């Protein structure tokens, strides 16, 4: 890709990503916010494609836009919290903490960016030729390093996910045996802030 085209794509995609991210925070309607999140994910996927990371871009769309945000929307619709805003915050001080963390990561990122000025950028021919020069494609490269060098981290991550799934199943099944027909109502009451919504159902 030529220099100019790269700049144009970068500016369009990154400004779309930032604009959509602002939308995620500012939209009052949760469904609109979730849609803005999808837009952000797509814009970031475009940036990945620009860096020749096709696999990462595809996985980003499949996993995040195609599954996770769909689940968000699913929950929003199921709980019926889409019409009226939930203004009471369950975590005190969360706005302040979020502001501090956000500013802090911005500062750290800026420092790293300024420090890394001398380092070769990712699109540098050196870094991409290491992948293409090995005679392996994008996917082969990821696959080989994932299942050899980083096998331990990969397995740990999958165990973590299994634990999360099992935990969710255990939480849901807690009191809903055949001898406790009121189990689902009980669960709704025992839930978090959305409990009242569920109990109504």
């Amino acid at each position, binding site marked *: 890709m030529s220099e100019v085209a790269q700049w144009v794509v970068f500016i369009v995609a990154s400004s779309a990503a930032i604009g959509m991210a602002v939308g995620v925070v500012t939209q009052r309607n949760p469904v609109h916010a979730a849609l803005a999140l999808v837009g952000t994910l797509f814009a970031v996927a475009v940036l990945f494609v620009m860096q020749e990371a096709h696999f990462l871009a595809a996985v980003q769309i*499949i996993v995040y836009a195609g599954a996770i945000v769909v689940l968000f929307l699913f929950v929003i619709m199921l709980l019926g919290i889409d019409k009226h805003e939930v203004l009471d915050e369950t975590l005190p001080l969360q706005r302040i903490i979020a502001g501090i963390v956000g500013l802090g990561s911005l500062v750290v990122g800026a420092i790293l960016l300024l420090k890394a000025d001398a380092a070769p950028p990712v699109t540098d021919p050196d870094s991409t030729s290491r992948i293409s020069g090995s005679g392996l494609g*994008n996917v082969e490269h990821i696959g080989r390093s994932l299942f050899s060098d980083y096998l331990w981290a990969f397995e740990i991550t999958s165990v973590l996910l299994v634990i999360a799934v099992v935990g969710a199943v255990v939480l849901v099944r807690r009191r809903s045996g055949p001898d406790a027909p009121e189990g689902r109502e009980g669960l709704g009451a025992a839930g978090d802030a959305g409990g009242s919504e569920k109990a109504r159902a």
Partner: protein
Amino acid sequence: MIEDPLWADGEIDLADVVIIIGKVIFAFAFLMITVVLFIWFMRKVISDMQNRIGPNRAGPFGILQTLADGVKLFMKEQSIPEQADQRIFKLAPYLTLLPAFLAFCVIPWGTQITIAGNTTNLQVAEIPMGVLWILAMSGIGVYGVMLAGWASGSKYPLLGSIRASAQVISYEAALGLAVIGAVIRSGSLSMQSFVAVQAWDGPGSLRDWLIASAPLSFVIFVIAALAETNQPPFDLVEAEQELVGGFHTEYTGIRFAMFNVAEFMNLVTMSAVAITLFLGGPNGPGTDRADNWGALISFAWFVGKLWIFLFAAVWLRASVPRLRYDQLMDLGWRKLIPLALVWTGILAVIKVGRAEGWEPGIYLPASFAGAGLVALFIYACMPKRELVPAPSGRSVPSGPSGPSGTGDTSGTSGIDTSGSTTSGTAPKEVAHR
């Protein structure tokens, strides 16, 4: 990865741009014409199967019926419900149409053609992650249905959209695992590599078609693709008897037409994917010619295979009753996904066994036996499918199901498996067996 030979000279000149634009227009026109013809074909075949005449007024054999319907829908008023979320209500039809076409863009509908000295693939875009792109687009396609149902601000569309999202997410896993079967055999994710692997040179290359080496993947793919595109017998999303019209109940005019077109576009795209992955794609007798006749013959093969597939879809539509919701979830999660997992394991063992030169008489039976043991273990561990008695107050139609629709959705959440609980949501008792 096999690059498009159009880029082989390393620079983009005017001819390249014209060819690319031509290919995009051709692909879109091909898809639209196929859909328009398919709608007529479907109505005609179903009416034949049901001893009716079907559309026969507009044009010879009623072939222009779809066009007439389209013109009529263009002229109709586009009503928007008062409770609707205006912006998203208008956006949703485009969100279903766009992914359907984008997914079709990576499908090769022929081998290579030479126009005025420029050789190019008969395919809009060859991207290295072609298969993943299709999975991504079929995952994105659910947004249109979901948001249409939600934005309508009405009860039945919301139910339809919640069913849609649950169904699509459930079957995405089986679809992906079926695709993995084909990918293991071909060794690449790009669509052109599938065409290359299954290239035709004599009848012996029928054995190269991936349906021969991964038949179970093909079966799982077809079932999951039908569910993913909300085709019968998996069309619970718009189950007329229960949900009036499902997610597009509140849509009228051209927006309604767009949903219908997108639905059949998805079916055409998925059929094309199945052909490309498992049935040789555009390859067939005569496609080994290097000249433009080879390209034409390959296009004819592609179209022929596509219509055989579409006929099978119509056949299923006419003959198989719609699944109940719990049957749908049961088939997806408890049958297809474990089956696809075990089968993927077998394919992987065969792949490694061939590469390492193991003794086929040992590793083939061993892999099947091991897979059988794993499958037995999975099914033994699976909790028995039991009919959970409906909680009191849920099955009574005058129960506490609120107008917001939240109370009703629990009837479709797959926990109540008795089927009797849906009476609270549907105007009539569910009539399916």
